[in-house]
């Protein structure tokens, strides 16, 4: 009974248990938490298989980003709108369990009767260690053989991001007068967008009066009470 087997048993048991939790939990947030648990165990399995980079990446990409997005969506959608807990009619649930079990049996048989593959690739344990570790090995292969696939993957990602933003953008009710900060200008953002309220101005004042003067702002000093008594004189 090597230590490895014990760790493997623990991780896979936890992973499968959490996986069942994802399907069985009534509250979607609980199932999301269960999924986090199962992904951490998946990452542990990856590390056991020597693929630390994938393990860490799995946590960062999946658990850290995608699942957080799912959690955001669950929370943003009003709970009243979520469809009530429904795991299919009793017959359907029983049928799916049976089908699942049969499928699992078939795959099990296929696994047992397969012939083990022999070592074809150059990346043996020692060679990977000599190259500096799993990350370097992946880097080496990815950017040499699969360079094209790498570019296509980046294209897919950009399309995904742009699509998500376009679909998800809410239509604003009142145009917010937000001023984006740019560290480039030491004096804070220099070119102000028209920062005044966007709606029809109270005294229908021409729009350009709203833009803030650019750059250093000074105060107009006056001693004479009759100067600058009309609107707009100081901002000339």
């Amino acid at each position, binding site marked *: 009974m090597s230590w490895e087997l014990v760790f493997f048993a623990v991780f896979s048991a936890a992973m499968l248990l959490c996986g069942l939790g994802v399907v069985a939990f009534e509250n979607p947030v609980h199932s999301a938490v269960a999924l986090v648990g199962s992904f951490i165990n998946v990452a542990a399995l990856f590390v056991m298989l020597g693929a630390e980079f994938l393990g860490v990446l799995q946590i960062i990409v999946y658990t850290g980003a995608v699942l957080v997005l799912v959690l955001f969506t669950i929370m943003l959608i009003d709970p009243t709108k979520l469809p009530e807990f429904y795991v299919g009619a009793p017959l359907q649930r029983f049928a799916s369990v049976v089908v699942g079990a049969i499928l699992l049996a078939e795959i099990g048989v296929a696994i047992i009767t397969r012939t083990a593959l022999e070592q074809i690739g150059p990346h043996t344990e020692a060679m990977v260690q000599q190259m500096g570790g799993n990350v370097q090995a992946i880097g080496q292969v990815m950017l040499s053989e699969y360079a094209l696939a790498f570019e296509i993957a980046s294209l897919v990602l950009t399309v995904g991001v742009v699509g998500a933003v376009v679909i998800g953008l809410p239509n604003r009710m009142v145009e917010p007068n937000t001023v984006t900060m740019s560290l480039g200008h030491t004096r804070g953002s220099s070119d102000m967008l028209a920062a005044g309220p966007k709606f029809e101005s*109270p005294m229908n004042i021409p729009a350009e009066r709203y833009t803030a003067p650019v750059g250093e702002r000074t105060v107009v000093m006056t001693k004479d*009470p*009759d100067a600058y*008594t*009309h609107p707009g004189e100081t901002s000339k």
Partner: protein
Amino acid sequence: MTDGENQTTQQTLVPTGTGWERELYFDDDLSKHPVVRELRAVFPDDFLDAVRFRNETTIYVNPAKFREIAFYMRDHEKLQVNFLSDLTAVDMLNLRTAPRFDVTAQIYSIPNRIRLRMKASIDDGMSIPSLVPVFNGANWMERECFDMFGIFFEGHPNLRRILLQDDWDEGHPLRKDYPTRGWKDYPVYNKERTIRRTKTRWTGRGV
């Protein structure tokens, strides 16, 4: 020679300068006051009276024309009374019988630096045109007037109580007939010592 001189001064009342100098606003003879002169010319029957006291001018106007006169004075290119400093009411119950409330608007012209008080006397229950279309600042002032005196302002976008709770059912406190202690009899906590209604301590006169 002196006669001639007197005649000439009396008949031709044409003011020497342009008629809009600052001194004319502070002259005790109200006929020279530019605002009084203009309003008498444009609103002859709505301009009721003008009073000078401690170097301040008060004009009394017909309540129905309250908003028009304010518009006129604001948009007049020479008067330019464009600033409403304060709008409040005075309950004249003990001072006179006829109209009960005096709605007073302290108006000010920033370019000419002239302060003026415009009063309109209305009776209890009568309403007066609101100044919100003329000056936005009048919004909260009128809400407070309504809250404290119960005066209705026509055309006010959202006339409701501002200082007291919305469900204040005891009327309007700043009226003279509203007792300073309020209507409710607050329970006196040491019941056994009080035989009859005792004077409250802090006003001393059981008011």
